[in-house]
């Protein structure tokens, strides 16, 4: 066998070391941020912290949560993730079911497919989209974070492919029993599609939690912003003119360990669902792959 070959064994261990090194490199920045967030102010300012906290304390976290803006933003983000994911999944599952029917059964299927395919490959652009949202009256409304993103064609395709891979006998049996499309979807398809639904829900949820641009584009008042948008202005732009905060707040925001704490809090929900995500996503991705 090739792996008994001495030169291959040398390669094998070098390769192993390389891969382990690379994977550690992928999580080191997060560990660094976590260490800074738990460090004392002076050590963090002087940038002495590497991967272990110096002067260990939770002060930056308590300071962060004392800030009302931050609490509001977290609530908005949670609310957004729940609403957006629930409504998005309902719309996606319903549409995907219809699209998963054969063209023999659902003759205008191709028409719908092109309708959705087109919006996936052509976008009107930032300014027309903004003007439309303005015209519809959604500027400064919570729903601007939810409604435009409800139709995610890519998720629809994943869901549709999952439905199509289910055994046809289930359909046959249900039809013979006189079940309608609604009945087939709710009583036959939904119960056995829970893993796929869980996967796509988790991805949607992470997407909602992470998205920041729509909040910045469509919402003028900072109290309405989701966490990602707030974090963007505090941590990245470092622009305090818009946020209307007091000088004490300003001192706090420019504090390196507080900033690190805020970044880590934004990472936390993703880290929490990550083990679940990982169990599912390989399946989900393969669905869109090359078909024989």
């Amino acid at each position, binding site marked *: 066998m090739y792996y008994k070959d001495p030169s291959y064994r040398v390669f094998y261990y070098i390769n192993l070391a390389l891969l382990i090194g690379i*994977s550690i490199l992928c999580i080191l920045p997060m560990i660094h941020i976590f260490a800074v967030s738990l460090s004392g102010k002076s050590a963090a300012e002087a*940038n002495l912290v590497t991967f272990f906290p110096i002067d260990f304390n939770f002060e930056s976290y308590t300071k962060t949560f004392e800030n009302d803006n931050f609490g509001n933003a977290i609530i908005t983000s949670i609310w957004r993730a729940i609403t957006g994911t629930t409504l998005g999944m309902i*719309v996606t599952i319903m549409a995907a079911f219809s699209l998963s029917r054969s063209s023999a059964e659902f003759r205008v299927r191709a028409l719908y497919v092109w309708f959705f395919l087109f919006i996936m490959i052509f976008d009107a652009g930032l300014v027309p989209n903004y003007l439309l949202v303005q015209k519809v009256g959604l500027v400064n409304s919570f729903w601007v974070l939810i409604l435009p993103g409800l139709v995610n064609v890519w998720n629809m395709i994943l869901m549709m492919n999952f439905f199509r891979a289910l055994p046809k006998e289930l359909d046959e049996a249900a039809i013979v029993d006189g079940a309608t499309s609604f009945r087939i979807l709710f009583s036959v398809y939904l119960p056995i599609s829970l893993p796929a639904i869980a996967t796509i829900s988790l991805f949607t949820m992470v997407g909602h939690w992470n998205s920041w641009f729509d909040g910045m584009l469509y919402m003028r008042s900072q109290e309405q912003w989701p966490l990602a948008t707030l974090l963007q202005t505090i941590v990245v732009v470092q622009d305090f003119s818009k946020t209307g905060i007091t000088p004490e707040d300003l001192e706090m925001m420019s504090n390196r360990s507080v900033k690190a704490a805020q970044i880590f809090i934004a990472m936390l929900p*993703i880290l929490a669902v990550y083990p679940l995500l990982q169990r599912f996503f390989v399946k989900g991705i393969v669905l869109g*792959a090359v078909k*024989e």
Partner: protein
Amino acid sequence: MKNNDIIASTGRSSTALRSKMPFRKTWRLHLLLLPAVLIALVFKYAPMPGIIMAFQDFKPWLGIGGSPWIGWDNFELMFTLNGTVQVIWNTLIISVLKIIFGLAVPVLFALLLNEVRNMGLKRSIQTMVYLPHFMSWVILGGILLDLLSLDGIVNRLLTTLNIKPVMFLGDGDWFRVTVIVSDLWKEFGFSAIVFLAALSGINPDLYEAAEIDGAGRLQQTINITLPSLLPIMVVVFTLSLGSMLSANFDQIYNLINPLVLGKGDIIDTFVFRSFQDGQYSLATTVGLFKSLVGFILISGGYYVAYKWANYRIF
């Protein structure tokens, strides 16, 4: 194999069954599609007429109906304005490099990871390298700003190695390098999933036969593994061409600063800035140019992927 036969045979009988059943009332299927269609009509199709702003000197207070028409002037402006031409170049340079490395590195990583036979170790490595994919560029932007600043941890490491500190985000060329490398760092693991799936699908008999013929691992990789990966590589590559004019707004916007606008500004950041400055028509025009090129590249990409690898999305 057996399952396929069963499905195929029942598939045939089902059409016969169906034509007899009064199942042609498909209104329920239309109804199930209705919410998605409405949302798409309002938020995706309704903005499209707004594209005509590209042919107007649009003023918000006059509206699309009242703004004066100026024909192709905006497009002429786009291709003659120094700023916009530079921006298109920046976008192309950054995204082409991202596409090339974004294909090569995940393939290489998948090949190397495929050699690991300890399953527990393999899974731990995967857990770690997939993680950055799920973090937003706001979070990673914040982290990078901290790590790569002049007194950041990376520059401190360089100083101890007697290398002069580098302005990763303050120098145009270094900015491009940083953007490409950090994007690669975030995505290479997750992009490797498709290739790992393809690798696990290769028929083991091929390797056994090669083994008997005395082929080493390298020869096996070159003659069996790589050819088996080729179709999926073609698909990934052609589909990624669609992002040629994107270059990732989220990332660039969160890392860019006035020092590196010259070499780091891309189409999307330019469009957003023009929009903020109230230059609606120019922003629409540049955005339209990007959308059209993207449309052509994506449709072309899907066509090639379909012809070459029988890839179908719907």
